[in-house]
């Protein structure tokens, strides 16, 4: 579970910095359009950050250094975190990666987290998952999730459900104003709170606006 923030953190590092200096392992052809500077791996391949070991693996990858990285069925892997997006479009200038067509995340902290789509902001390391999110472990579901990966926080927004099998209880939040802040500690524990400090709430919900 605790790898969730680590994963996003790693992802941010990878996208913001690492992909500026990565090794390319194409699975087939590597097509470089000299006019646009866009490199396409039509048979897919792997982009590996030599420093962190973060790897982006996809059956199709296109990138332009300093401008974008696009991938289909992108699978990102770091030590313990597996991340999958049907479609990844990283706008290097805006510093946001749009994730579409289904996102899935597995880590020792959160397993089986799924959402139809979302966005990832490498700096400051915030992920927004929208359209109905659900995780297997811990067992929760919410309309929207905003996660500050550096601070190991996840804010559930809108109607939510959070089950604690140890307690044998199911917590529910009602209506569009419902919220639940999940804080993961280093030992893998999670604490939950509906009274979110006002400044934190403002800072995290600001990422709900796309630009």
């Amino acid at each position: 579970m605790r790898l969730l923030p680590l994963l996003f953190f790693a992802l941010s590092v990878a996208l913001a910095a690492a992909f500026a200096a990565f090794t390319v392992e194409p699975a087939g052809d590597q097509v470089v359009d000299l006019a646009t500077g866009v490199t396409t791996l039509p048979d897919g391949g792997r982009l590996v950050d030599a420093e962190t070991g973060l790897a982006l693996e996809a059956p199709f990858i296109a990138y332009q250094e300093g401008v974008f990285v696009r991938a289909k069925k992108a699978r990102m892997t770091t030590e313990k975190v597996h991340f999958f997006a049907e479609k990844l479009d990283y706008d290097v200038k805006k510093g946001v990666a749009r994730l579409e067509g289904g996102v899935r995340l597995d880590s020792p902290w959160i397993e089986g987290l799924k959402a139809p789509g979302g966005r990832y902001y490498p700096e400051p390391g915030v992920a927004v998952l929208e359209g109905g999110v659900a995780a297997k472990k811990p067992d929760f579901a919410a309309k929207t999730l905003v996660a500050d990966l550096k601070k190991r926080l996840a804010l559930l927004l809108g109607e939510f459900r959070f089950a604690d099998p140890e307690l044998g209880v199911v917590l529910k939040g009602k209506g569009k104003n419902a919220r639940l802040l999940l804080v993961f500690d280093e030992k893998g524990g999670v604490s939950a709170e509906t009274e979110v400090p006002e400044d934190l709430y403002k800072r995290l919900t600001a990422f709900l606006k796309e630009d």
Partner: protein
Amino acid sequence: MRRGLALAVLFGLALAAGCADAPYTLKAPFGLVGGEALSLKAGRLVFKKACFEGEGVRFLAPLLTFDKKQKTLFAEAVRGQALGHPFTAERLTATEAQTRLMGVVLFAGKVRIRAREARIEGERVRLFSLVATTPRYRFKAKEGELLDDRFVALGVWASPCRENAVIELEGERAAFSLQDGRLLIEKGTARYYGCTLARPQRLLLDTRRAPKLTFPLRLGYQNGWTVGLVDFPIPQPEEPFGAWQTHGTLLAEGLGGPEPTLSLGVSAPGARFGVKLKDGDAAIRLAAQPFFAERRFGGESYLKVAPRLKAGDLELRPLLGAAQRPSLAVEGVFAGLHARYTLKANLGDLRVRYAPFFEGIISPAVAPYATWGSRLEASLGAFSLAYQSRLSLDLGAGALAFEYAPPGDALALRYRAFSLVAERHHDAGWDRVALGYRGERFTADLRYGPSAGRWELGLGYRAPRPKVGLALSPSIGWDPAAGLSRAGLRLDYGDGCLVYTLKMDAVFNPWPDEAAGFSWQLGLDLR
């Protein structure tokens, strides 16, 4: 208690919204928890402005905590309902098996139960070290169990006294009905100043009504000594303590005088029976609605059936009877009708009630005769008037032998503490006019009898009934022609629970409707 009930009602309304509608809810095996905010930290789940709905219990609390390790719910300053009964509690702990309340106040009907501890287990509510306050009794028990409509307690103590438990009722077990407020104490002991008065197997109390305690002993002197018991209670099975409806009388009058009389009587709701013995003769009276039978001294006898029929404001009583009246040399059967109509009108602040009545008798033994009259009552603010008149008409020259009420008039005018009363009794040939003042403490009357040519001035002081201690209320009557005409003294002694009264009256110069003599009367009343 009213405030408590109001709170309970308000709380009931607050609960009616339902815990499922709370912004944040928790579904646990033992119930549903809700709140306006929640936090889960280190295995402790805290709800703020919380509510709970479980089997047989629901409540609100400012803060509710669920402990992961103990699998226990904790709350303080709780307001709720247990099996439909509103309660408040200082603290609450709940597990799947049991809900425990500490410092509980529970409202069951009109009864307020305060307990050190309450345990709710499914459909049972068990209470420990409890004190209950009912409208008329204080009640304590070591342990009790609240069921749907009754409350069963063990090791019970009850007292009708608000202070100084002069009267104590104890029992091994008691069952309290929340429906009718009746408390049945089993294997009881009744104590007065610590002395055991009785050990009834079953003692029933009506906790909604004050027990009516009377002191039936009579002592007086009027043409001889009067001594005996009047209206002493004869408790019946299933009749609450102090709510006895059957009474007996055993009274000797005129002892040492020319006409000693012994009276025996029993009265029950709707029925009375009495026998008087005097000088080898007997007078018997039996009344059991609608029958009435009487034999007077000297052999006059009378039998009547008079059922009461009501149709709206009209009341009819057909009469059928037989009588033997040697004094009037009349005997035979008779029939008649008594009719009364009551008219009520409210004209702004003016309230008027007018009731005319008629009674007609026919008999083969005497000529027909009739009595009629009316009663008028009116009030306007602090002013009130009552006037009653009764006239009779005898169609033949015979005696008004059977049903007969003597004609007369009575007028009463009242304004606050002041009154003017005039009475005229045609047959008895006397009349009286009285001007009175009846204040909170002092009373004064000026009475005048035109036919007797007599005046009397009465003065009295009424002491407030003492909580503890003695109070004296003297009164006198003074006749300008004869001097002191009457004197009275009432002594009230209060012990914090009961007020004991000794009333002594002496009449030196009687009016036509009273006799000279003196009487003592003892009374007993709960404060």
